[in-house]
């Protein structure tokens, strides 16, 4: 287990170093997030619909875009550097390869969300103070779900035509259950509802994460091996 994590971290670190050395991807993702939030502001009539009603949707659509950007850039990185071939001939296990990529993608998305959330709070004057910790928890749970499946599918589309487009199309149905859970819990948290009301959705998110992280870990080898 320790070996696995160490190997995974090696893989993750390689990706992250490349990432943050150039900084283009992360900056673009953050700017994009800010743009999306800005557009949302101009798309609504604050006198007609209270912000709090739209807030969960705005937050999650923005985060979904951020996750998609992260996954697409990860895929680009592979293509440009042909790093995948190199990794495959190394003695790294497929599991640590997957986890490494998963960790790298999660870190990337986490950074974007880390900037996005405060911006969201700022732009829409959303009262997150008291519910910050649970909110971060939900964000973490849902993000893990998106990125787990997304990382698997990134590997899958890499050798196909129209890969980036295909990635979005095949990923969409898999984003819906965690998204539904996330939006519902966020709405309840922001509305000051007790956590007990969100239990069903939290279980959904947790179950989804457990199932799909395991499944993706297992299936990853079939997307990369001959």
């Amino acid at each position, binding site marked *: 287990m320790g070996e696995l994590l160490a190997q995974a971290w090696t893989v993750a670190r390689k990706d992250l170093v490349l990432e943050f050395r150039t900084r283009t991807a992360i900056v673009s993702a953050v700017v994009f997030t800010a743009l999306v939030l800005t557009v949302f502001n101009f798309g609504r009539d604050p006198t007609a619909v209270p912000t709090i009603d739209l807030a969960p949707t705005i937050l999650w659509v923005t985060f979904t875009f951020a996750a998609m950007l992260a996954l697409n850039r990860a895929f680009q990185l592979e293509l440009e550097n042909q790093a995948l071939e190199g990794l495959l001939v190394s003695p790294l296990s497929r599991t640590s390869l997957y986890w490494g990529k998963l960790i790298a993608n999660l870190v990337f998305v986490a950074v974007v969300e880390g900037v996005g959330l405060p911006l969201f709070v700022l732009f829409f004057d959303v009262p997150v103070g008291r519910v910050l910790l649970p909110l971060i928890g939900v964000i973490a749970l849902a993000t893990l779900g998106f990125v787990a499946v997304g990382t698997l599918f990134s590997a899958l589309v890499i050798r196909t035509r*129209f890969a980036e487009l295909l990635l979005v199309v095949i990923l969409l149905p*898999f984003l*819906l259950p965690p998204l*539904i859970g996330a939006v519902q819990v966020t709405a309840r948290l922001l509305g000051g509802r007790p956590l007990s009301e969100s239990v069903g959705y939290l279980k959904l998110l947790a179950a989804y994460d457990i199932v799909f992280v395991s499944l993706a870990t297992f299936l990853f080898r079939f997307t990369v091996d001959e």
Partner: protein
Amino acid sequence: MSLVQKGRWITLVALVCLAAVYVRALAFTPVERLQGPAQKIFYLHVPAALWTEAAMVLVGLAGIFYLFLKDPRLDRFAEASAEVGTVFATIVLTTGPIWGKPIWGTWWTWDARLTSTLFLFFLYVGYLLVRGAVRDPGLRARYAAVLGICGLCLVPFIHLSVFLFRTLHPQPIILKPSAPSLPNSMLATWLFSLVAFTLLYVGFVTQRYALSLARAAQQDRSSDAGHA
């Protein structure tokens, strides 16, 4: 009798069965009092929905077996089941709104069945697109299997999300476009329809499988010629 011929015969029988179901549903099954004649859409909509989901489950199962057994027949079956599933999904997604409009007053309703079928439709489209995007048969089969298995595992989550959403957001409706408690004659019609759709699935999949087989054989011949 070749596989294609068997498929065609089964499909023909299925279509005749379907015609009989049409006659029975339209002329010999009582009209439901609250919903009126539009309720009869139920006899087509629900069996189609059941098979849309069953076809996806079979695609997933075929994928699991393919990854372990590497038998191309499983992959061909999965391909066939996916295409037929998409056709059935189209039926559900067209008859659904047509039923919804007179009953609920709106073309689209986020009811459990329509929402689930919409998800399934997206899954099918993605699956077929991936298949179309990969040239090499072995790679294609493997990728399709991975996606199919993920799709299979998604199905319970689709139902769970829809269930949670609906129980926590009860719709204030009196009429539901679903089964009222069915008297026997209605139940019989529904069962006949289910049989018809089952036969349609089998007939269609058989033919589509045969098509896959023929294409694979053709590819083998032409690639051999290339090496000759």
